[in-house]
């Protein structure tokens, strides 16, 4: 694959601009972190509330650098056979069946059990060689020659033991397989780990990563995001929409609306050819933003006031 931007030469400004072109509106903080990650060759641990674009960042970075993205979705009970590597047991069995005759040839000529065993010893590693290795995402990321963007998504959902597997790959970009040895990265991948803070990551993991916290965006930034993703929406409606969303986030909700949901709402309004917010319109479309009945009820009580405030925000 042709690389569009070499990581080693990326500057902070080019990253800021390039991510923008890839459809990701980012703050200077994000650009700085990405810049450091490229040059210090360190993974980035991205934290922040759900739906602020943590996963998107990895995708946009992959697009910007022109690298393939390998994604590893974490969940409880994830273990090394799904993350690092697995032996191809079927192939091993099949080969032993096929090679049985050959084994007879080898063993047949020898006299006595001890000699047979002696002879077999010369071959015993055969079935545990790279040919029989099934690479899983982490190993695959190391074997990619041109480098790759590795996204370990929602690492906080995995068990604590899983972090231990990650440590080796994060600090040295290598994996140790007992039967074969150490496999080093052909080209160091750019690693993103995302976390929703459902649990605190271990210090050992944090120490090996750069840390980036992405908060909910401010109104200006969010308007820009909506502008990039939903170009069909009028400037006035966009301001009203964002003002409304920012008000909603001030409530004590079960789940505050994420940026993703803001975009969904903007798309909905664009589809409906709305040109300004009205209490009725909001009431009908509120379920694209709020996903719990309680939350919807809570916001509906203040709907009139909030819509008015949103409308006046567009006038300023």
């Amino acid at each position: 694959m042709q690389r569009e931007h070499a990581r080693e030469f990326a500057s902070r400004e080019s990253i800021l601009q390039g991510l923008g072109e890839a459809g990701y509106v980012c703050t200077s903080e994000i650009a700085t972190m990405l810049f450091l990650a490229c040059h210090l060759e360190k993974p980035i641990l991205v934290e922040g509330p759900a739906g602020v674009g943590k996963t998107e960042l990895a995708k946009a970075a992959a697009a910007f650098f022109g690298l393939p993205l390998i994604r590893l979705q974490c969940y409880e009970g994830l273990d090394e056979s799904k993350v690092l590597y697995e032996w191809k047991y079927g192939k091993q069995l099949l080969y032993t069946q096929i090679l049985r005759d050959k084994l007879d040839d080898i063993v047949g000529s020898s006299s006595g059990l001890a000699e047979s065993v002696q002879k077999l010893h010369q071959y015993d590693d055969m079935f545990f060689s790279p040919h029989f290795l099934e690479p899983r995402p982490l190993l695959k990321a190391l074997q990619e020659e041109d480098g790759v963007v590795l996204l370990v998504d929602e690492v906080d959902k995995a068990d604590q033991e899983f972090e231990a597997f990650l440590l080796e790959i994060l600090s040295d970009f290598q994996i140790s397989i007992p039967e074969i040895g150490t496999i080093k990265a052909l080209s160091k991948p750019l690693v993103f780990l995302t976390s929703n803070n459902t649990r605190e990551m271990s210090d050992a993991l944090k120490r090996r990563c750069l840390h980036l916290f992405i908060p909910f965006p401010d109104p200006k930034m969010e308007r820009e995001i909506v502008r990039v993703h939903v170009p069909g929406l009028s400037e006035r409606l966009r301001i009203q929409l964002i003002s409304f969303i920012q008000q909603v986030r001030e409530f004590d909700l079960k789940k505050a609306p994420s940026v993703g949901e803001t975009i969904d709402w903007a798309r909905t309004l664009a589809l409906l050819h709305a040109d300004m917010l009205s209490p009725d319109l909001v009431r009908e479309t509120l379920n694209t933003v709020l996903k719990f009945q309680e939350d919807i009820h809570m916001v509906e009580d203040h709907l009139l006031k909030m819509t008015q405030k949103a409308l006046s925000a567009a006038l300023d």
Partner: protein
Amino acid sequence: MEEVLEEFVLALRSSGVLISVAECIDAMRAVDLVGYADRQLLREALSGVLAKSSDEKQVFTITFERFFSSEGFPDPCQGIEDTSIRVDLRASDSTLTRLLVSGTPADLVMSVREGARAVDVATIGFFFQGPYIRRILHQMGLEGLNHDIEMAHGEDGAASQRRAMILELARSRLIENVKSFAGRQYTLFAGSSTEGAIEKYLRNARLSELEERDLKRIYAIIQKMLKHLNALYARRRKTSKRGQLDFKRTFRANIAFDGLMFDRMWKAKKIDRPDIIVLCDVSRSVRAVVRFLLLFLYGLNQTLVKIRSFVFCSNLVEVSDIFDRCLVEEALARILTGAETGLLMGRTDYGEVFREFGEKWLDTVTSKTTVIILGDGRNNYGDPQTEILKAIYRRCRRLIWLNPESRPLWGAGDSEMNRYLPFCHLAKECNTVRHLERVVHALLRHHSSLSSSSG
């Protein structure tokens, strides 16, 4: 420039941000890349490398603002240059005098910094600013300067008197500047050590002596403690869940099948979560400590998975769902007013409480349950109902009684503690945060050791 970064890391560490050596090296490499010129860029870069949680980021921002404040280091010899021209240097003058008279401002700054480094910047504490300043000045050679001034005073002639006056002026300016330097160092380095001293005091202070205003601090300490304990023991609880092939057992079990590995045996362990029931006395006799016991209870409720909380005075009510629903202050207020819960704040009646518990909730006590009772056992001379406590004791795994009164008072007056004592696996005096911590330690350790042996 590396020294600047080192000092900044030191300042961060003393504010409670944990920074490893590896992270220091990363910070240096990052600074090499971004440089010191752009302040915002520097902040963003260092923030990503050094501060690794949102709490740490807050501390980082404050410390960064203080450390790299725009006014820079105050000049210790401001305004000296214009007067210094008219003072002649003598061969006998001390180095500090020479520095004040003929050195550049930068030389003086270096001298102050070096003096500060020699007296060990990090040891500055709340009450030690005075000695700290004196030590810096001593290191810089104040004695020599004083000597020179005295010499000038002792001599006749207008020139000598003038010289003495100017040097005195320079000295007082120097002292002022070192003072403000020390003040800045204090805000950078010692803020947290004072905080640490307060925390240490609160941990050991008797709960009844603590004031309302300490509530937040205590709660933070309790949370810290519970988080630590949880991290320590949650892991072990988890591992007991995992199954591995138990080769020995498999081998033994399959002898019957002629040694063919037919029936696999797994190293399965039972999941054994702590199952805890807490009864907390909120009556007047324990009023002074009750807030803190409830705080502790609230913290436990947030941290441990399976816990049922009850409070009692004249009767017993369950408050688990209040703890689950409300924030800490609100939960405490609701329970103490007793409005919603139906708690009667009459005479404390342990007998009635145990009877009620025995009737309604005895079924929930199993061989896995740990029952914790927080209270002073003062029953107002009523029937202690030890029989029911005995029944609970027989059913549960452990019954732990935490008494805020010190041991000699147990059994004195209307305290029924000595009659309850035979039916407790563990009874402890518990009136400081430290005591609470020890109890939780014992509790969790016991649980995990039992669970691993039951596997």
